[in-house]
């Protein structure tokens, strides 16, 4: 190509990228892939979706028995079963979307190596699929919450807003993990361990009140975005007498810390993914 002007030559083929040239295509593809995957799960086996629901419910059942009968961590906590179930369902979303995205690029190898498409679709469709499951699981939570005796309140309408920072946090990690895994296969075991740490570092099994000191409570709420979201979710959906996120963090301004963490993870995830995207097909 010796011609200086590229106009008569048309557009340049730059190779694959994270976003591609048409953002709508990212959405089309991610939604299509997530919907199809959801269909497979839903209609794939005889009991179909029941299994998707059974997993958190069984986990809940085990934890409930252990922590009310043996360890009695939930004793005296209002609506403890509802808090536990909600925590498990929200955490299931987080762990599903992040741990599945670790291997997402490899799992989609047949697409990545065979066709040009915005690479961001791969982790995005994983997070979307986890969202679909979350919405259905939350319906079960809602039924359970009502059955526990919580009265419906207008504040419930604010609950879906909490799913936005949750999704952004999971999405940032999904991009980061899926891009890193292509180069470093150690990412998988490392992330499994970190997920465990996050599980016990978030008020799922326990409520913040049982932590021994205010400093510890504030530390958890300020530096673990999941904890921030869970505390606020408990306040909004289940028990309005429980502290909300800013009280638990020790002031509204302290919520800037978890917000910053989420945004930094999101930006870092995108930056890494965007940097790796052009070469992902070759490195598989």
């Amino acid at each position, binding site marked *: *190509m010796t011609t200086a002007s*590229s106009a008569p030559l*048309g557009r340049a083929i730059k190779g694959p990228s994270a976003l591609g040239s048409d953002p709508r295509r990212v959405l089309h593809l991610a939604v299509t892939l997530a919907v*199809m995957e959801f269909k497979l799960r839903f209609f794939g086996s005889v009991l179909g979706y029941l299994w998707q629901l059974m997993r958190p419910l069984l986990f809940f059942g085990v934890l409930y028995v252990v922590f009310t009968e043996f360890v009695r961590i939930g004793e005296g906590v209002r609506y403890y079963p509802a808090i536990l179930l909600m925590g498990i369902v929200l955490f299931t979303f987080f762990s599903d979307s992040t741990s599945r995205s670790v291997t997402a690029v490899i799992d989609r190898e047949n697409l990545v190596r065979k*066709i040009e498409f915005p690479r961001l679709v791969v982790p995005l469709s994983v997070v979307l699929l986890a969202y679909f499951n979350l919405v259905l699981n939350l319906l079960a939570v809602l039924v359970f919450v009502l059955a526990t005796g919580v009265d419906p309140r207008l504040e419930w309408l604010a609950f879906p807003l909490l799913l936005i920072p949750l999704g952004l946090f999971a999405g940032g990690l999904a991009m980061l993990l899926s891009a890193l895994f*292509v180069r470093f296969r150690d990412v998988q075991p490392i992330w499994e361990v970190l997920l465990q740490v996050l599980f016990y570092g978030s008020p799922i099994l326990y409520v913040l009140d049982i932590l021994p000191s205010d400093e510890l409570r504030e530390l958890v709420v300020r530096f673990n975005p999941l904890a921030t979201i869970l505390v606020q979710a408990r306040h909004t959906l289940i028990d309005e007498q429980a502290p909300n996120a800013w009280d638990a963090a020790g002031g509204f301004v302290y919520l800037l810390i978890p917000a910053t963490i989420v945004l930094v993870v999101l930006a870092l995830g995108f930056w890494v993914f965007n940097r790796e995207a052009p*070469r992902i097909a070759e490195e598989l």
Partner: protein
Amino acid sequence: MSTLKERALHPFKRSTFDRFDALHDVSFAVEPGEFVGIVGRNGSGKSTLLKCMAGIYRTDTGAIYINGRMSTFIELGVGFNPDLAARDNILINGVMLGLSPREARERYDRVIDFAELREFEELKLKNYSSGMQVRLAFSVMVQVDADILLVDEVLAVGDVRFQQKCFDVFHRLRDEGKTILFVTHDMSAVRRFCHRALLLERGEIIRIGEPAEVAASYVELSFAEGGEQPPDPDATRSGDGAAEIVDSWWEDEHGERQTALPQGRPCSFHARVRFHAHAEHPGISTVFESEAHQPLMATSTDNTSGETGLFEPGDEAEFQVRMDMVFAPGRVHASPAVAHRGGHRIMDRRERLASVVVTAARVSGGLIDIPHDVRLTRVEPVLQPDRELG
């Protein structure tokens, strides 16, 4: 790919890799409406070139420009999932190929009808035969209507009738003025469809132009090196050793030794014999065989008089067969033999001693191509008096 452990243990070691330029200095332009074949041996860079054009790989240097909507068919049925029904698979595949979900849904009927799979549309893909899957995939590809298509060897699939349909589609696409780049090993397809062809070898374009010429170069190249050679000519040697075939070769019409010869031109086969014992009217013969060991032609000095003369130890003779090259394109092997008078006691026989590659602009499918005439004449239908007309 490496692990963190490797990085941690050898922090200063540069990650080791061998640099391999899959493509080098490849530059060409394709006009709108052109149908270009990309040919080359395995590992010559065809697929890499296609993937760079498709945007799947990023080029290290250089630039590629396209003008129009492009669709890639590196593999048929990208995104197909065996556990989903045809409808869902068409949707995924269509969206992967660049349609919006709405466009993909709108084209569903056309796709399923073209594939002739209407009666199986509710079936999961895993219950389809492989041929049916291919039909479905090809149908989606045809309905995507891009201006520029990049196609990687997809025609070698499906049953005969569907292949014919694919060819019809390719003709139609060509006539509609689509621009198509087509990677293949099928030289007859190159000759039939392409306006131009380019031949890649070790990542470089070594020939670009007339499909027939490029196809001929490809055949020559493929058989010139790395073609099937007999493992050891001596292993298949037989005879009592009273004479020895010392050399054997092919010549073109100008008497030059050649390893490739054009079809339809005069040529000759030669074998040189050295005698180690007294021989009276020995018979020298040869069999020409195709690559697939099909005997194409056999000839011998016994076909003439058989009176070849008397030879003493140390004498040499040259056997010649003059002919027009009538064999089909591909490699032809000659197995010459020298025998005592009568032809039953072999002095020396050399299996596949000399081979030549026949080049031609088209492949007829037969073993030989001799000059002939083909006609089609319109004739009056014969009316059957006892059958009602209309």
